[in-house]
């Protein structure tokens, strides 16, 4: 369902190819495809419309370069614009001149606030700071327990207010007392976790505003689930109006969401995205990279640098030969080995695979580690030429011999053979996806044209 934008554009732009300039007429279809790709990525309807308008203005009259196809060129314009839009530089959290730096964390239910608080505390602790957590989510059952357990696992103190074993239902008081407590214990960073709340819940929105007034935080972070759809604009706007927050945290980016919400939020509130949260473990927190996000939204893989890097390594003739082999399913282990040598010169395998349009998603599920490279090389090196050309003849005793030859186990050999079969299958699927019966235009990817 989510064909990558690059693939779509290759099709839509057939009409533009061969024409010297991008004109209003020849990019109408293309703009529709771009808009649709953005909508498929959950970019807000209106934001997507405005964004495509802007891209069109930029693209119109632009010269079609000969080295890349017009489709790729447009994708690059879209991509550059997206990166620009998402904020080119990284914004961190500025620490207060007089500690403690007070960080207030707010957002909808289930967006991942509590986990993020744990991660942020760990992040600072590793930087040699003395963070403290405050459990101001006094409503959700066991929320205080959850924060306490997270805090315990990273060895960070947490301030919670309980009387007779019951959580005191006064978030403002918890937050204020936590500040005093942090001062008393010379903690230099205080992270306040708050209850998840609906942006239209007047009472709860008032509460978080009251917390803000009471503790005067140095930094307010709005936590948002990266899988959020069209409604992201409504929630972000409302939270921003109430809190005038300083930055956004995108969570659950370890899934396969395209994350268009990032663009929508950025468009309505003009606040930087500061962190990306990528897993349940407490070390899964990274700074936000606009370029990666842009690639993700477009589902495109990094076409441009792929083309650039590939150009250095492949010549047109080789690419054509390889393309024919894939099409006719003659692709064998010898070819594979040859490709590996070339690819190795280009960089990390996973990076490279991720750059191929349409592969991004499939790759994320695959475990590709670069060390596996060495093993693959070793295994193939231990095969005879005949075995490389006809992998199907590799029977049990051959497998044992190969394993001995390369110092690995038989199951490693099995795994490689299995991976190779899967790879062939994937290439076949790609051929179908991209060509719909016609040949894969690998030459375009690999530097031809």
């Amino acid at each position: 369902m989510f064909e990558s934008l690059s693939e779509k554009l290759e099709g839509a732009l057939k009409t533009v190819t061969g024409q010297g300039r991008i004109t209003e007429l020849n990019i109408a279809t293309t703009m529709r495809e771009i808009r649709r790709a953005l909508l498929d990525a959950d970019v807000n309807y209106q934001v997507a419309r405005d964004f495509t308008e802007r891209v069109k203005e930029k693209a119109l009259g632009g010269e079609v370069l000969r080295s890349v196809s017009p489709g790729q060129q447009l994708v690059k314009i879209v991509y550059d614009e997206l990166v620009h839009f998402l904020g080119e530089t990284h914004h961190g959290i500025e620490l207060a001149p007089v500690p403690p730096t007070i960080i207030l964390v707010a957002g909808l239910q289930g967006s991942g606030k509590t986990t993020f608080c744990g991660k942020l505390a760990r992040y600072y602790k590793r930087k040699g700071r003395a963070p403290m957590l405050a459990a101001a989510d006094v409503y959700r059952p066991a929320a205080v327990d959850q924060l306490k357990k997270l805090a315990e696992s990273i060895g960070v103190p947490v301030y919670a207010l309980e009387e007779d074993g019951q959580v005191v239902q006064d978030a403002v008081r918890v937050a204020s007392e936590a500040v005093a407590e942090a001062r008393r214990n010379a903690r230099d960073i205080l992270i306040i976790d708050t209850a998840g709340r609906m942006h239209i819940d007047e009472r709860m929105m008032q509460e978080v505003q009251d917390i803000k007034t009471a503790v005067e935080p140095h930094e307010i972070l709005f936590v948002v689930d990266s899988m959020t759809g069209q409604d992201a604009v409504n929630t972000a706007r409302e939270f921003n109006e109430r809190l005038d927050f300083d930055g956004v945290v995108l969570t659950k980016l370890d899934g396969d969401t395209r994350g268009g919400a990032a663009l929508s939020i950025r468009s309505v509130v003009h606040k930087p995205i500061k962190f990306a949260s990528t897993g349940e473990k407490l070390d899964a927190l990274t700074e936000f990279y606009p370029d990666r996000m842009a690639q993700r939204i477009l589902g495109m893989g990094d076409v441009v640098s792929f083309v650039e890097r590939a150009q250095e390594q492949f010549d047109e003739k080789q690419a054509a030969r390889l393309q024919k082999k894939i099409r006719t399913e003659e692709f064998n282990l010898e070819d594979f080995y040859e490709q590996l040598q070339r690819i190795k010169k280009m960089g990390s395998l996973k990076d490279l695979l991720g750059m191929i349009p349409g592969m991004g998603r499939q790759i994320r599920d695959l475990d590709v580690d670069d060390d596996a490279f060495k093993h693959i090389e070793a295994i193939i090196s231990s095969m005879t030429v005949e075995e490389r050309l006809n992998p199907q003849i590799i029977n049990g005793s051959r497998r044992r011999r190969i394993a001995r030859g390369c110092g690995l186990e038989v199951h490693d050999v099995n795994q490689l053979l299995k991976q190779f079969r899967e790879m062939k299958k994937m290439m076949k699927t790609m051929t179908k996806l991209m060509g719909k019966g016609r040949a894969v235009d690998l030459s375009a990817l690999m530097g031809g044209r």
Partner: protein
Amino acid sequence: MGLFDRFKKHDQDRLEEGLEKTRTSLFGKLDRLVRGKDTVDDEVLDELEEVLVTSDVGVKTTLDIIDRVEARVARDKYVSTKELQAMIRAEIADLMLGDSAERPAGFDAPLPHRPYVIMVVGVNGVGKTTTIGKLAYRYKEAGKRVLLGAADTFRAAAIEQLDIWAERAGVPIIKQKHGADPAAVAFDTLQAATARDVDVVIIDTAGRLHTKGGLMDELAKIKRVMGRQVPGAPHEVLLVLDASTGQNAIRQAEAFTESVDVTGLVLTKLDGTAKGGIVIGISNEFRIPVKYIGVGERIEDLQVFDRRAFVDALFK
């Protein structure tokens, strides 16, 4: 941020207007009589597109709906805008699957199995545990004997959270300690259910992103183990979806259906401004009915899904 600033004023105003635009023009229009028309004006289709896409229905399903509406209108003709609206709504509602006697959504309905075992799955933060608390309360109110199983042994304090809901609903719970094998907890719960002559068993599971192969396998294992204790169990596998989730919900439905064969959907957090339109395409594509909606944080804030009301809400 040069460009950003340059565009800020003008574009921002336009954007705000666009976003604020209420859905009045088409669906709030006074009923206007027309002479038996068999086509829909482009203006109406554009507006329909906007309503659907901004409700997270998704481009593909939106286009499907527009095709259906056009085909229907060509066939049946309409004489007033009101009639056209009714046709549009009916076409959308028809895409979603209805309730079945095999797995009734109603709490009073006779249950086809005893114990009737419900397994609840979903990604992190969608509201699984809260939904279970509400379901337990509803079944209990309907006079059923309910037992909960705390098989989310992974997330910090998940067991405590379910425990509190069990207490609120006034139903017993089977639990082990944090980090225990979730399949073992599920097994124990079903064993206890048989021994205690329980009507409904609801098993909580840890939230997991559908892209994590290992965790999805674990879920499949929990399900298999249940079948060993009670034949046919779980009878219902509910996938909980957050109404504010966008197109990724399709991927979730796909992956969870593949690993545990989802039989029903629960749409949570409909008390906000999100419309949850994504379930239309999911229900249609995967042939799974939407069973319940969550509309608040109180224990009674769970309703049996009503297709018509849901579609009406899209146009509000």
